[in-house]
């Protein structure tokens, strides 16, 4: 018992040291803005360059164009074939990644200090002068089609496609970013050139940088990379208008374990109740064992390996979503528990102990995020695309601590709606009927 008392005393006696990160705003000679954490202890720099818009910008007759365009950026540029380009990155030991999502394209790079200028020239070629060669188009097209085919055999992807297509009819969110087999087969080189012109533009770029680089050097680097991009492209689409009603959708797929995706409308980051919602989500289904859903569905009943919820901050319609997998015989019981927890938190909010524990975790873990050049660059790019102020890192914990039980009760009553909760189940669930 002594041991126990000591642990608790330690837990409450001190709060962890605050992050000592200094974020500088850098403006390049050409007028681009970036956030930088300058740290010369390891001789490389990490960049994270986010372009908002992405798959949302695809025209209706060219679904998947932005996705394929992004995949093609490393497939040859400026007279270099894909293999020449790869060999050049290898000889510099520089690493580039090009990823596209619903709302954004994210380009990341790591460059050694000793050959940073050459690495930047290479990345510039990929961003500004991609070749979109015919052979490369066919190779990437085959890979994307194979990915779409795999998705059709992946219960999580099947659930996601069903949820988004029902929730967002008439909006680009209704479509998978990769497009469909038909749309991908129909994509032409012109579609890729258009997607490139429309998606990679200077007015929708957000940049984070961390590591061995000075503000002046970073400014010059960014102008090298991005100066030749068009100023602006296709405007983003309007609000997505969530249309899915509460209920259950069962998609039969022969597999021993069912996958469930569930949710309804969420809350915007700039909503005054965002922080109460953020803490509420942590308590209900946040990323740890303590959450109510992990306790009730996994720890108490053994119905799943993992269950979680998250606030999905889509640009055009925020969602409150969650996901888990359970054996076909257990999934109905797991959904009953889920619905009961959803209703309970909507009606009763959270206890003082739950709130205190969540605040302790959220504020204590926050400073621990700020390590590693790649991570820092990513955090800073996301903060800017989320329109956060540069001093957010210093105020965020205060905003978490300011949340009260009453704030959560008010927000829960507004956000958590058991009647609106829609569950999509993919598998061969026992005792579940569509629409039930």
């Amino acid at each position, binding site marked *: *018992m002594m*041991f*126990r008392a000591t*642990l608790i005393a*330690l*837990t409450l006696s*001190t709060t*962890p*040291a605050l992050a000592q990160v200094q974020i500088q705003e850098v403006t390049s000679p050409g007028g681009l803005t970036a956030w930088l954490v300058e*740290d010369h202890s390891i*001789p*490389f720099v990490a960049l994270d360059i986010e372009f908002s818009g992405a798959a949302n910008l695809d025209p209706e007759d060219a679904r998947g164009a932005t996705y394929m365009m992004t995949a093609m950026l490393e497939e040859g540029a400026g*007279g*270099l074939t894909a*293999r*020449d380009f*790869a*060999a*050049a*990155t*290898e*000889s510099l*030991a520089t690493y580039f990644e090009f990823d596209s999502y619903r709302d954004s394209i994210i380009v990341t790079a790591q460059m*050694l200090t*000793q*050959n940073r200028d*050459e690495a930047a020239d290479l990345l510039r070629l990929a961003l500004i002068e991609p070749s979109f060669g015919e*052979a490369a188009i066919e190779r990437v097209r*085959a*890979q994307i089609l*194979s990915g779409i*085919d*795999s998705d059709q*055999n992946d219960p999580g992807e099947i659930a996601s496609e069903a949820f988004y297509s029902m929730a967002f009819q008439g909006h680009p969110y209704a479509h998978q970013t990769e497009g469909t087999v038909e749309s991908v087969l129909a994509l032409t080189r012109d579609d890729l050139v258009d997607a490139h012109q429309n998606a990679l533009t200077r007015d929708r770029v957000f940049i984070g940088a961390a590591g061995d680089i000075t503000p002046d050097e970073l400014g010059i680097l960014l102008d090298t990379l991005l100066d030749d991009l068009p100023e602006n492209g296709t405007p983003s689409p309007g609000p997505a208008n969530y249309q899915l009603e509460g209920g259950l959708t069962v998609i039969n797929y*022969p*597999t021993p*374990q069912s*996958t469930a995706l569930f949710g309804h409308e969420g809350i915007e980051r700039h909503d005054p109740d965002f922080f109460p919602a953020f803490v509420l989500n942590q308590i209900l289904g946040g990323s*740890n*064992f*303590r959450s109510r859903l992990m*306790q009730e569905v996994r*720890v*108490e*009943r*053994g119905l*799943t*390996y993992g269950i979680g919820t998250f606030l999905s901050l889509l640009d055009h319609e925020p969602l409150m979503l969650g996901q888990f*997998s359970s*054996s076909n015989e257990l999934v109905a019981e797991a959904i009953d528990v889920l619905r009961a927890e959803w209703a309970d938190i909507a009606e009763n909010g959270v206890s003082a102990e739950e709130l205190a524990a969540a605040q*302790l975790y959220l*504020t*204590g*873990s926050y*400073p*621990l995020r*700020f*390590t590693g*050049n*790649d991570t820092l660059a990513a955090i800073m790019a996301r903060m800017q695309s989320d329109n956060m102020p540069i001093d957010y890192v210093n105020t965020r914990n205060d905003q978490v601590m300011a949340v009260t039980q009453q704030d959560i009760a008010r927000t829960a009553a507004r956000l958590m709606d058991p009647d609106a909760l829609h569950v999509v189940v993919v598998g061969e669930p026992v005792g579940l009927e569509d629409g039930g």
Partner: protein
Amino acid sequence: MLRFAFVALSGLIALTGPTRAADVSEFTLDNGLQAIVIEDHRAPVVVHMLWYRVGAADEPPGESGIAHYLEHLLFKATETLENGEFSEIVEANGGSDNAFTSWDYTGYFQRVASDRLGLMMQMEADRMRNLLLTEDDIETERSVVLEERAERTETSPGALLGEQMSATLYQAHPYRIPIIGWRHEIEQLGRDEIFDFYHRFYAPDNAILIVAGDVTPDEVQALAEIHYGPIAASNAPRKARPTEPPQIANRRVTYEDPRVSDPYVIRSYLTQPREPGDQETAAALTLLSNVLSHGATGFLPSALQFDEQRALYAAGFYSGTRLDYGEFTIYNVPAPGISLEEAEADLDRVIADFLEMGIDPEQFARLQFQWEASRIYEEDDVGELARTYGNALSAGLSVQDIQEWPEIIAATTPEDVMEAARMVFEGTYHVTGYLTQPATEEATE
């Protein structure tokens, strides 16, 4: 074009300036606990890891999955902590924690503010010996483990083929059993077996402590003496594992599953792992896997994906950081319209071409430069570096072996790599696996 031809040559000079290996130090407590400290003072964060030199390959026959099942149960009640309280305390301190199991090790870690290190050690030392393991906890957690097996393995045709491949590649050695265990054996595991396994293997002389982050070796040693020092050694060394008989035949496995999207062919060879004081062959195999597979310029993707466009993906990999055996694997995911038999023939043909043509010296120099550069990049994530050390130490290597590895890689020549290639591809029996949809009438339409 010219400019990058120039870069490709000039970029091959060595890194400018010395690579400074991260500060790593080592000590051992009187009770046999080995400890490694990796310093990184950029942020007030520490990763605390405890690795046990026990894994799925140490399970008694018929009790597959026990090492991993026990890993789950370590988060349950001890004599002083309630069920789940371990993680609650970690979280209350802003930390995150988890655990992992492999064939050769079981590891536990927390990532917390560096001033919480003592608390983590106190709790980790507690659950080394004082776990209660109630029947109730064991039963509920069995269901969680079976759900994990369903999620990771049974919903994935590729993972199911992987199990069949391992069970065929190894004829006697326990690397043949899945880490998570066979379902029918997990269903039968009871408290007595789990408790015996725990008591036998969870002891300081069977563990490795790794602390990485904003700490000094002196602080870590002082805390380790306080928290781990009082625990008695078990003096129960790991039992020798069964060894493989000489392999005298190639074997084939075909796994059919209607959920398969992209059929593929995969081939595995039993090889040497990294051996203490003798890592040259493993270094050559590591570079062989890079030469064959790395990016768009690897021999396999370059031939099959780029020149011929007969593959969606073709590559290979070497798993060498293991206690008893290494594996070298190659695979080919053919383009639509190409059968698995043709895909296998393509692999054979391209490997034969490789053995004939040898290694492009420019590619080899680029790969060597990337290995050098990786020593810069890896310093950015000491948590990952901690994992690299834990993995290698539990595979029987020493700190010296780990630190000499980059030099051994650098000293490896294209001739060494070709010799390793001939050893694998011309001198080793193998297992070839097909992953495919069941043959149906529709499929031939």
